């Protein structure tokens, strides 16, 4: 079923691209160390110290290894894999380079993390009509300038663009036009929908919803009853409607990232590895949005869905992941870490410096250490 544009006019259709770097950390390592190419490479914690996998190369994925898996499990599945500690400074500089490429086409770039971003190219600096050609050009420039491959999803909203980029990895490009959207969504497993995590997926299954087609059968009233406000959003995306804009610089009161774990864990060391990953994503947002926040908040949701938060307020705005992590380690020890299974971990920064406190003048730049 083709999706009809709610505005009724083809001109108002947006052109959204989602770019997702392929096995980003691992690919950077393989790029910098040619001897690792074609080999299973795992970036993450130390398997001897109960680390977890932060990223792995496609060669490693063939062994069933995936991110957030215990590194020791990964080693068992593939003893030949090369384990590396992440070099976030390098990934960050590559990420900056990629963002420069995006900016050649549009200023409407919304980075989601170091390796993913949404671009709105409806109007673009090169006055190109085809978003598909733009995505192709961006992929080529990324390859040319960083030696890395990316996958792109091209569609008319964020939800479909993001799903599409995942469709044909690595080095793929998937276009979902309004005409194709209906079939595309119909076949989509419910777990792939934006906002459907582990627990929502289970509730959807309980309602007999396994694909987009099933979701579309539900009435708005059913969805609202079962999922509250999110129900309205599900009703929309089941019909290909998602009008969330691509926002390069959201004005925020707080900034946070959280991860629902693939399995509940009670090992504080593994929690710290996951939190470190989150901290680096936050550092990235802090830099991108030039945010000056002084309070670090740790969020822990236990297996029984009880949530606790612990916070620390610093004397100066948070600048990087290392600073976040020194406080997070303290804060984690103030929870019941190690004694209860945890299903979700998150870090939020708040207490943003207001205008009065923000330097209206110059900001100190950091030295390029660890590059």
């Amino acid at each position, binding site marked *: 079923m083709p999706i009809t544009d709610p505005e009724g006019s083809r001109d108002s259709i947006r052109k959204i691209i989602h770019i997702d770097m392929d096995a980003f950390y691992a690919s950077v390592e393989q790029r910098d160390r040619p001897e690792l190419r074609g080999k299973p490479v795992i970036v993450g914690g130390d398997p001897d110290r109960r680390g977890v996998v932060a990223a792995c190369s496609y060669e490693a994925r063939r062994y069933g290894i995936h991110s957030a898996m215990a590194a020791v499990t990964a080693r068992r599945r593939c003893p030949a894999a090369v384990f590396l500690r992440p070099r976030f400074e390098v990934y960050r500089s590559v990420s900056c380079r990629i963002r420069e490429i995006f900016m050649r086409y549009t200023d409407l770039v919304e980075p989601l993390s170091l390796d993913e971003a949404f671009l709105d190219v409806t109007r673009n600096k090169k006055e190109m009509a085809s978003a598909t050609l733009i995505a192709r050009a961006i992929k080529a420039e990324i390859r040319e300038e960083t030696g890395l491959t990316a996958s792109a999803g091209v569609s008319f909203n964020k939800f479909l663009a993001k799903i599409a980029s995942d469709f044909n990895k690595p080095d793929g490009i998937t276009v979902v036009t309004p005409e194709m959207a209906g079939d595309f969504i119909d076949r989509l497993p419910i777990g792939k929908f934006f906002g459907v995590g582990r627990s929502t997926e289970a509730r959807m299954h309980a309602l007999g919803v396994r694909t987009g087609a099933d979701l579309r059968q539900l009435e708005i009233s059913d969805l609202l009853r079962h999922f509250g406000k999110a129900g309205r959003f599900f009703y929309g995306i089941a019909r290909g409607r998602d009008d969330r804009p691509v926002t390069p610089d959201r004005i925020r009161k707080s900034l946070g990232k959280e991860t629902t774990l693939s399995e509940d864990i009670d090992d504080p060391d593994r929690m710290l590895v996951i939190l470190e990953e989150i901290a680096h994503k936050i550092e990235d947002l802090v830099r991108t949005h030039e945010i000056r926040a002084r309070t670090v908040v740790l969020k822990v949701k236990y297996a029984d869905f009880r949530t606790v938060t612990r916070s620390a307020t610093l004397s100066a705005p948070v600048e990087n992941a290392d600073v976040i992590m*020194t406080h997070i380690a303290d804060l984690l020890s103030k929870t019941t870490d190690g004694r209860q299974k945890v299903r979700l971990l998150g870090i939020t920064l708040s207490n943003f410096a207001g205008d009065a406190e923000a330097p*209206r003048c*110059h900001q*100190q730049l*950091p030295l390029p*250490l*660890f590059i």
Partner: protein
Amino acid sequence: MKFSIGKSDFREVLSKVQGLTGRKTNLAITETVLITAHDDSVTLVATDLETGFEGNYPASVEAEGAIAINAKKLHEIIREFPADEIQIHEVENRWIEIRNENVEYHIVGMNPEDFQQTPPIEEVTFYEADAAALRRMIERIIIIAGAPDDKRPHIVGAYFEGVEGDNDRLIRLVSTDGSRLAKTEWVLPPEATAPTGEGVLIPKKGLQEVSRFMGSGGTIHFGFQENHFIVQKGGETITIRLLEGDFPRYGDIIEREDGTPIEMDRQLFMMMLRRMSILVTEQYKGVIFEFSDNKLTITATNPDIGESKEEMEIDYEAEPIEVAFNPRFFIDTLNVIEDERVILNILDARRPCIVRGESDATYLSAIMPMKI
């Protein structure tokens, strides 16, 4: 325990350990000094759990034993003590008498068994160094310290390494606060030996204690034992627990082939920076340096106070550069450069400025600009 000791030596060492015993830790015992009397001397030990001090001083010992006593109060008592000879006596369990004929104090001690001992020094290879040289090195790099809540090892610690050059061997200390970095070296005399291999991260707080103990002359011995850095001078030993972590590879930051060297008079530049930093506040830390056509113009703008501008003639004929800096960083660096002429190397507004003395190759500082 009972002994008598000369006031001046005792007072001096108690003054030196205040930096350690005054530091907040989770243990009350670290506010005390451990005094052990044996044979014809007393040993005094203080620690903040990271850095430990141990010194041995002659005393006439009547009865052996050990006490742990509040370092601050003991220091105040000894400092004001009206006699040259002081008697210290544990009259009963942890009830310590400090006296001469006319003055008498009784102070409650703590259990010496609770004292956190520093690891005993066993098989350590010691290297010799000039005390004044090492002290100078430390002073030149500990001005670069991070924010108090910044616990990253490469910020909290300074990188210490022995370097085997083509013609000489040297020891090197490197320190960074994330925005600037300083490197200082001491070329060893030809006959001296130096540690080689991987460098180590030594907490700057501990190094500060080292410089305090070192005095201004003589020879010290330093060495490493497992994860500790040890410095000995005379009967005194400092033991610092090393930090675990990586120090950035700083070579690319400090080595520079390109860029235009800009030579300046250190004093004149310093005075100019002082004048320009009058308008600098916590919120407006930056001033703008403009190098163009044989002229350096610095402007400071602080919307809350006002603005200032100053020009200086320099030799500069390259492309004009405009770049913002925190003038404090330059003042700190110029303060520890001894040459009368300094050389700046600026590439652009996004890469660090290198500052060094005209002839002194043993010190260099890299200062990152601010965003304009």
